[in-house]
């Protein structure tokens, strides 16, 4: 893709110059501090360029000056709406480097929390996405239900958003008294709520008109751009790391990978809705099968992984979240590189928005489900 040429705008209708509009970084619909430079012909998007970095905190650089344990809380601050998944990815990557494995009980609790977090992340996405398209009510419904998940997190580890739930080698906290009951209660509470969301949106004429055929990206294009997660699956590519490269103990569970056909915004919406239901299925199986046993593997107090490098990726709510860690044998990583799903998915924005209208840019930003903390790191 060539960079936008802002110096020599073409002539358009009525010989008016092309309109170059700066959307963001202070814009209600860019989900944070994303700045999008739009080149418009009237309301039609001729091209756009994302300007990122407004939330850059140098997380990867910080890692080089922290020990492996000390860096763990930092990853929660990347995708702050799916902090548990970030922690899982990091812990598993370091575990891989150390060649240890978390005990089964820890694995189960990890899966439960991660899947709960996936639901919470999707709920936040649904609320804000619908709000961008103009439906204000789903936002409040999803936030009401997300609260129940956050309560479980709070009871488990004391934090609601940046949980720091996992430790390298397992868990710090044993599941609290009544954890299983709370999770089961949540599942029975939540099942009808998804129907409630779908009732408001799935067959709503205006919702269909706003999302069908908007922001289409084909499967090959999505693969070429490195797009992952629900966005890729909605384009018909059945690629979910939980199935493709099972990590944690996902191979023990029976669940399906939803895919779409057309790769438009509506399919992405449907895929995520089904994913929430599938997450419920996984949690149900996991809660039923939590084994007894230790929650922490034997991990040295001072971690000195052997010299080498490791890449480990998990299926975060937004796509493939990978950690590439290079160890020089000391207590601190030599280099950590994070492959954040939002950052890579954001690349697709230009392809998805060309030829669409300004209002669709909003819808597409919403449907990509980006979190700027993760994009900018």
């Amino acid at each position: 893709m060539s960079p936008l040429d802002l110096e020599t705008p073409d002539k358009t209708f009525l010989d008016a110059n092309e309109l170059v509009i700066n959307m963001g970084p202070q814009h209600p619909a860019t989900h944070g501090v994303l700045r999008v430079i739009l080149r418009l012909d009237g309301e039609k998007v001729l091209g756009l360029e994302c300007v990122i970095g407004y939330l850059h905190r140098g997380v990867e650089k910080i890692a080089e000056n922290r020990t492996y344990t000390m860096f763990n809380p930092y990853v929660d601050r990347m995708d702050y709406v799916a902090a548990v998944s970030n922690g899982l990815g990091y812990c598993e990557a370091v575990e891989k480097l150390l060649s240890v494995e978390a005990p089964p009980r820890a694995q189960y609790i990890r899966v439960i929390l991660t899947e709960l977090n996936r639901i919470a992340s999707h709920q936040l996405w649904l609320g804000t996405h619908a709000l961008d398209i103009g439906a204000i009510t789903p936002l409040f419904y999803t936030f009401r239900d997300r609260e129940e998940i956050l309560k479980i997190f709070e009871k488990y580890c004391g934090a609601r958003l940046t949980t720091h739930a996992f430790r390298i080698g397992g868990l710090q906290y044993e599941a609290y008294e009544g954890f299983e009951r709370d999770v089961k209660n949540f599942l029975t509470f939540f099942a009808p709520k998804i129907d409630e969301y779908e009732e408001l949106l799935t067959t709503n004429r205006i919702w269909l008109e706003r999302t069908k055929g908007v922001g289409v990206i084909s499967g090959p294009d999505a693969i070429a751009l490195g797009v992952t997660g629900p966005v890729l699956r909605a384009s018909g590519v059945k690629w979910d790391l939980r199935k493709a490269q099972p990590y944690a103990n996902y191979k023990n569970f029976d669940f399906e990978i939803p895919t779409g056909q057309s790769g438009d915004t509506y399919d992405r919406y449907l895929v995520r809705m089904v994913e929430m239901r599938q997450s419920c299925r996984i949690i149900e199986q996991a809660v039923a099968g939590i084994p007894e046993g230790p929650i922490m593997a034997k991990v040295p107090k001072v971690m000195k992984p052997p010299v080498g490098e490791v890449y480990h990726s998990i299926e975060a709510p937004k796509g493939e979240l990978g950690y590439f860690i290079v160890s020089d044998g000391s207590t601190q990583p030599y280099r950590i590189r994070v492959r954040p799903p939002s950052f890579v998915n954001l690349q697709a924005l230009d392809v998805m928005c060309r030829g669409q209208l300004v209002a669709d840019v909003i819808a597409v930003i919403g449907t990509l489900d980006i979190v700027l903390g993760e994009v900018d790191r």
Partner: protein
Amino acid sequence: MHDLILYIQSYLDSDRTPGGAGNLFWATVYILLVFAGLSVAVIAMNWLERKILAHMQVRLGPMRVGPHGLLQPIADAIKLLLKEDIIPAEADAIVFWVAPFIVVLAAFTVFVVVPFGPTHAITDMNIGILFMLGVSSLSVLGIVTAGWASNSHYPLIGALRSSAQMVSYEVAMGLAVVSVILMTSLNEQSTGTLSMIGIVQAQLSQGEWFVFKFFPLGLIGFFIFAVAMVAETNRAPFDLPEAESELTAGFHTEYSGFRWSLFFLAEYSAMIAVSSIAVTLWLGGWLRPFPNWLNGSTWELVFALFPGVTFLLLGVMCFYNTARMPKHPLFRIQTIGLAGFGAVLALIGLILFIPEVRVRVVDIYWFSAKVAAFMYMYIWYRGTFPRYRFDQLMKVGWKILLPMGLVLLIATAVLAMRTEVWVGIVVPLWQWFVGILHSLVSSL
């Protein structure tokens, strides 16, 4: 003193509108009454919209200022009036200054012809409905100039969108209105009327509301108007000019304080104005429901008691909620306030039971009740629907509503010219169809 009462009495019993009688004094009184009523309605609407929307969205809405947030609109109004009135440096100051007033004037002037009752209108113009449509279309000018004078991208786009939207939906709206005007001509002289009072009286003399006339033609016309009027007032799901997620606040982005509140006022009174058109044209204006089915003097009395009962119920609701207020001393003032408010409402309800008062307000009550139903629909739409995209909005206006309106107009014209077609062919066909449907359903 006695003369004064007699003077008032003579006008209360007059069978003409003050404008029709050419009485400037009473016309002025009516204008002030309508203006005051409208302002109260806008304030009430502000509070109701927040509360109803909040309850639809599982939250409480304003609760702090006054009991159940009853004083919130007043607090907001004071805040807006005290705010600094900013005129951007690059703006065209005169036009920027004038634009909100154009919008407000257009929104308020239409109420000159709104018939709250057979005599309760400021005046009854021969061109009533034309006047209403024309004057309400003038608010486009205010919006366009507001967007232009702000001298900024977002307001300009918002203003162009808004005016394009209003201009295109006016067409469909006009067609629906014309079909009603054709229906008014179904009398012995076969002369229709454009007068708002005349239209309601035509419904009275024909014995049915126009929404049921030539079923389903009247209903289709009503539907077209009901969609177009939401678009015309820039409300959800057609609130593109104010699409917050795209254009921040549309044409009034650069406005603040008092001037902004004028736009707000205009938006709500325009909503009330178009709802009154719909009520007058299709829902029988001030006529009470079920006049044919529930007739007789007993039912007349029952329906005449409705205004009082409504206010009493509102008062009872206030008392009920007074009992539910927290018993903490901090809430004492609020509790007393709510009880007082309930007492006032109940008192109004009791006053409305007095026969002399009753017969004079029952028209106004039914008219306002129907308009209030529309107001609720506006809030409901806002809570339910996502927002249309601009091209889809235009598609709905030009490719769906306009052809529907044209077909409707032609069909109504044919039926109005040849009533025997309706009585002789369409009604039997319709009954036959309904019969088949009925037998199908019962056989299942």
